[in-house]
């Protein structure tokens, strides 16, 4: 009785590993190629038997600054997004404000607006406000990628905070802000972490705002750096692949370290 079912579940694991291997093959190939500095694409071996870091050396020399820009950009956008979205999510979850249903609806609709439309209109405005080619300008634009998502996600976390706890804090004399900061925020830590994680990833991955709102080359995040690489040199692929690997590091590390938050963010942000 037990043997066939364990065999079956082992077979399932094998099949699952196979699926994983097929779907993650591009990721493997990227890492593999990044370590073969002398290879043209035709001679790239299936495994980096003679690994060389010269692709990475080249990538860091060319793209190191861009990685730093991306990091500052993503951290800045995350800070802005969380600071703006957290109190809003609380208000939408707990205050009986007139029209809040419509505000939630509007927040949802913003996620459906194509980025190119925003970029097209922002370009002129940014030009007038001297925000083109500036880090703060790009931070503000990138934060807009995370804010609607964060509001919707955290709202469902905050709706679950028992009203009695909030009441109790108010009765004890805590003001709105105090209640929010010392009671609601700690309880909803998981939701806030998830929102921050995704805001970071959205900003880190942003390409369209970087492409349209920076043209002078003074502010170049890594995504734009790779795109420009493609135009310049397509013969030597190992630095390109090494840059791609470096650009993929944060997402990979976050997925490994914060798997639980990521999984709940994808489903929570979409269904709610």
């Amino acid at each position, binding site marked *: 009785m037990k043997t066939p079912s364990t065999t079956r579940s082992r077979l399932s694991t094998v*099949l699952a*590993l196979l699926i994983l291997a097929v779907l993650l093959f591009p990721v493997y190939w990227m890492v593999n190629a990044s370590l073969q500095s002398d290879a043209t694409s035709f001679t790239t071996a299936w495994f980096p038997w003679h690994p060389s870091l010269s692709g990475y050396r080249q990538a860091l020399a060319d793209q190191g600054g861009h990685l730093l820009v991306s990091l500052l950009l993503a951290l800045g956008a995350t800070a802005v997004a969380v600071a703006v979205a957290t109190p809003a999510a609380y208000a939408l979850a707990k205050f009986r404000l007139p029209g809040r249903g419509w505000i939630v609806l509007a927040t949802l609709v913003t996620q459906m607006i194509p980025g190119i439309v925003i970029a097209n209109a922002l370009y002129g405005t940014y030009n007038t406000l001297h925000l083109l080619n500036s880090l703060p300008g790009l931070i503000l634009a990138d934060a807009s990628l995370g804010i609607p998502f964060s509001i919707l996600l955290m709202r469902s976390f905050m709706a679950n905070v028992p009203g009695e706890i909030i009441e109790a804090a108010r009765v004890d004399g805590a003001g709105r802000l105090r209640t929010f900061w010392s009671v609601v925020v700690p309880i909803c830590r998981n939701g806030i972490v998830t929102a921050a994680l995704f805001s970071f990833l959205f900003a880190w991955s942003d390409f369209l705002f970087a492409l349209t709102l920076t043209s002078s080359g003074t502010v170049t995040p890594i995504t734009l750096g790779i795109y420009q690489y493609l135009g310049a040199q397509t013969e030597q692929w190992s630095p390109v692949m090494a840059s791609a690997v470096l650009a993929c590091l944060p997402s990979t590390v976050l997925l490994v370290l914060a798997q639980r938050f990521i999984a709940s963010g994808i489903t929570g942000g979409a269904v709610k």
Partner: protein
Amino acid sequence: MTQVSTIPGARAAGSMRAGGPAGGPRRRRRQERLAQWLFLAPALLYLLAFFGYPIARNVVMGFQDYSTASLYTGQAPFTGWSNYQAVFTSGLFTKLVLNTALFTVASMLGQFVIGMALALFFNRRFPLNGVIRALLLLPWLLPMVASATVWRWMLGQDTGIVNRILEGLHLAPAGGVPWLSSVSVALVSVTLVNIWVGIPFNLAILYSGLKEIPPELYEAAALDGVGPWSRFRYITWPLLRPVVTVVVVLGFIYTVKVIDIILVVTGGGPADASQTLAVQSYQLSFKTFLFGQGAAMGNVLILVSLLFALVYLRFNRRAILTEGES
């Protein structure tokens, strides 16, 4: 003004108490309301500045001759419908609509079918299930530019690994498939890459939907001797319908605006073979600096997205408006 700055805090409450009976119940209620709105104010301003205003401006720009010169002078003469006329009669428009439709429908279909199959598969119990499922999310989380760059390299005709593998399996024609250089294949290539990116999203959401279905239903069906297909047809599918709607609508909205994958993998070429409405909107504005025409094209895109948004809201509006009442 001083009121506004002190209200949303413990100190405000304290000072009010110290101030004695000055604040009557009505005034206190008004202050309370104001304090509540202040929590929402930054987000509302942000949404207005980065979504409301750009949309409105884009609608206006659609009727303007907005060019590079306009950026310096701030002058953009109104030209009626001429941007739309130019966009619709450019000869490319039919192709763009067709490409966008093919790209979107094929992407969604591919992502959904594979995502669904994987979700059903991972709904079984087996060792390492959770770990493997988590790792499968990776393609969706990686910066699209990075993964699209890898794909572009893998799809190279003479030297790419995809052709090498296909040739090894005797599945490719002699000389390999011209993934990026043929007018008839380029759109297929970007669609395949987009399917690859979207599978994890479909898998994650459909999987969580499957987990919500009470296992007793399957147990009862198993006792009645119902086969696996009938179980899917009469239990899984009907109960999964709301989740499927969400996946399909979100899938549409995400796919129709894809730009990065196409720009990186094919650049929209060769000969506009993989151009879509979104990519063309970008190129009109930022390559040819015809911002008015770019806006017009973008507005067409918004219209299409909103149409789908309406479908989404039709299915979800009640849930959204009532959720969070407490």
